[in-house]
């Protein structure tokens, strides 16, 4: 009995000692020098728009080749699931080391303690070399919670052949031009619904609304946080959306569409215009497996009202942050520095444009056929309009989404819908 007992405790002791030696971050080599142990990071990305899943996998493989002691486990989710996935992981107290964050989340993620403040790690020389709109992706109260990665905005894409058939010589310069040209195309029977939008009840509908608010020179709040969007440019934007549905120029399918649906409708010759992200240009214009309009795609900055605003450009940038729960923040920083470097961004500039100003100064770096997109990007990036930077952004956006759709479904007038939204936004702010 005693023999068995001793044997049991000897095995247990051996297991504990072995466990301790494996759990250590470094180990003594035979020469007495400390050797670095392999580190495994986990990173969360999205699988739609911008860099493709394959692009991210390739970038990561190249990083791992250069840094053999750092391994990365990648996970991809749709944009619509990204926020909640990050929150669920944070709530569990563990999860990812590196996360992709949208420009609207730094306030929330910083106040919730999800992201690590890496202000000290960012060289000042880098800040001026990157477009300022990109930094908004990771900035909250003058602190940096990550490094920007994707610099993006919604462009106006148009089908050149359809415009030509309609006798239209140039793409729209104002939002009214857009509506007028769409009516001409519809009346000539070229396509039943000339404009496709992403108006699904999600961030999509609010984002498309923000583009138009920017276009009509509107604002969301005054300096005291009181809603302004239910008058002026905010009201004009929603009236414009509702009218375009009534006129039959906007596709009613927009009400359940997201960016990928826009791409499919536009790419199958069922729309003459679409507002979408950078990634649509190369897919619709060059990829015949996904598009019937190869070589016919034009791109311009989204126009404004032409009176106060010439270009309506919403900031849809995204950045990479390191979570508070990461046990390997140094390695995580090294990884995001690699992904956001100018050389990597330039190499993968097909579906997402670099945030580095130098890229735009040297046309020799631009991929073939990318010039119209880059021209539109340069004009748009100079005018990026931010969605409200609120710690409770998700609540605000959710309220807006509901009332925008009520107006689009004719359940409420645009004015009543925005007044009701403003009232609920104020109530929610007071409640919690």
């Amino acid at each position, binding site marked *: 009995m005693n023999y068995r007992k001793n044997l049991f405790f000897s095995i247990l002791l051996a297991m504990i000692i072995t466990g301790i030696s494996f759990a250590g971050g470094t180990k003594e080599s035979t020469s007495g020098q400390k050797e670095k142990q392999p580190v495994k990071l986990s990173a969360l990305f999205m699988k739609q728009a911008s860099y493709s899943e394959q692009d991210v996998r390739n970038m990561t493989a190249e990083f791992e080749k250069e840094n053999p002691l750092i391994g990365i486990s990648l996970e991809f989710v749709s944009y619509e699931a990204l926020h*909640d996935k990050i929150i669920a992981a944070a709530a569990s107290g563990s999860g990812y080391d590196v996360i992709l964050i949208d420009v609207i989340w730094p306030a929330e993620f910083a106040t*919730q303690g999800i992201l690590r403040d890496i202000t000290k790690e960012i060289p000042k020389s880098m800040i001026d070399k990157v477009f300022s709109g990109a930094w908004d992706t990771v900035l909250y109260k003058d602190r940096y919670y990550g490094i920007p990665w994707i610099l993006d905005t919604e462009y106006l894409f148009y089908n050149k052949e359809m415009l030509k058939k309609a006798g239209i010589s140039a793409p729209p310069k104002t939002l009214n031009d857009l509506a007028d040209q769409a009516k001409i195309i519809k009346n000539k029977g070229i396509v039943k619904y000339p404009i496709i939008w992403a108006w699904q*009840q*999600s961030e999509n509908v609010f984002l498309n609304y923000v583009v138009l608010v920017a276009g009509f020179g509107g604002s969301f709040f005054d300096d005291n946080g009181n809603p302004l969007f239910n008058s002026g440019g905010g009201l004009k934007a929603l009236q414009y959306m509702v009218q375009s549905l009534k006129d039959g120029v906007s596709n009613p399918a927009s009400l*359940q569409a997201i960016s990928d649906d826009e791409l499919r409708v536009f790419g199958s010759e*069922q729309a003459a215009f679409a507002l979408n992200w950078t990634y649509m240009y190369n897919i619709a214009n060059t990829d015949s497996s996904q598009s019937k309009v190869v070589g016919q795609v034009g791109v311009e900055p989204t126009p404004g009202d032409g009176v106060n605003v010439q270009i309506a450009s919403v900031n849809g940038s995204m950045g990479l942050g390191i979570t508070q729960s990461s046990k390997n923040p140094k390695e995580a920083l090294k990884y995001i520095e690699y992904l956001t470097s100018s050389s990597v961004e330039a190499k993968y500039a097909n579906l997402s444009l670099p945030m580095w100003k130098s890229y735009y100064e040297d046309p020799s770096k631009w991929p073939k056929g990318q010039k119209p997109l880059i021209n539109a990007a340069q004009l748009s990036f100079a005018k990026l309009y931010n969605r409200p930077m609120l710690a409770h952004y998700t609540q605000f956006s959710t309220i807006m989404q509901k009332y925008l759709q009520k107006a689009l479904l004719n359940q409420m007038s645009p004015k009543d819908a925005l007044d009701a939204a403003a009232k609920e936004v104020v109530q929610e702010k007071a*409640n*919690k």
Partner: protein
Amino acid sequence: MLVVAGIVGFPFIKTIYTSLFNAPLIAYTRKAEWVGFENFIYAFINPSFMGGVFHTIYFSLLSISLNILLGVLTAMLLNQKFFGRAFVRTLVILPWALPTVVNAVLWRWIYNPTYGALNALLTQLHIIQNYRDWLGSAGLSTMTMVVLADTWKNYPLVTILVLAGLQMIPKEIYEAVKVDGANWWNTFWRITLPGVRPALLVALVLKTIDGLRVFDIVYLMTAGGPASATKTISFYVYQEAFGFLRLGQASAFSVINVTIIFVFVIFYIKFIRSEGISG
């Protein structure tokens, strides 16, 4: 008993306890604050959430009715002797084996207003003149379309249960009533239905619980739209917890949801006892 208390009792009591606090989802940001029944009052005066309660009950009632109707009819058909019966039985069960996410994507394509198969079929049959936006209409029509998609996937469960019940009915009884001259309706009403009633009640309880906690298919097909017309109680629980990070409020919504399920289940239990039905 200890296992049940651990995996059901503790989370349930913890949820009730949390529902009395203004508690954040991420615990280290701030401390939970006692608010008593404030979260419940907020739920009952919140028109959006009450709309969610209505949508959930509508989904459940329509879904239960369609599931039972289709399940019973299919089971009766599959109980007949015909060539290839085993193959057809396997085929009928297939939708049930599909993951909900696949079913949701499949039906989003079928309902697509621009290139969906449903529009193409109905226009070719001259049932509708123009393509319709099946998931973009106001009122309850979008929820109805979601229920149809959900029913297609889930009614085979009812079929299996009822088919098992049908096979328990002795054939001699059918032969006896046939000799007595009973017609089809009388046979169904007096022999078949009482024979499958235990199976039907099991199906009813399962489908009620499924319906009242529905989330996944709604989230995947409509994201709660248009204009929140398909948001259910579970959708609001999810939104409060993971969108707004208000765990206390989400817990209160959950408690309300469980209470509604509880009311239905008590009703079924009483019904079962009064009828003296045993499985």
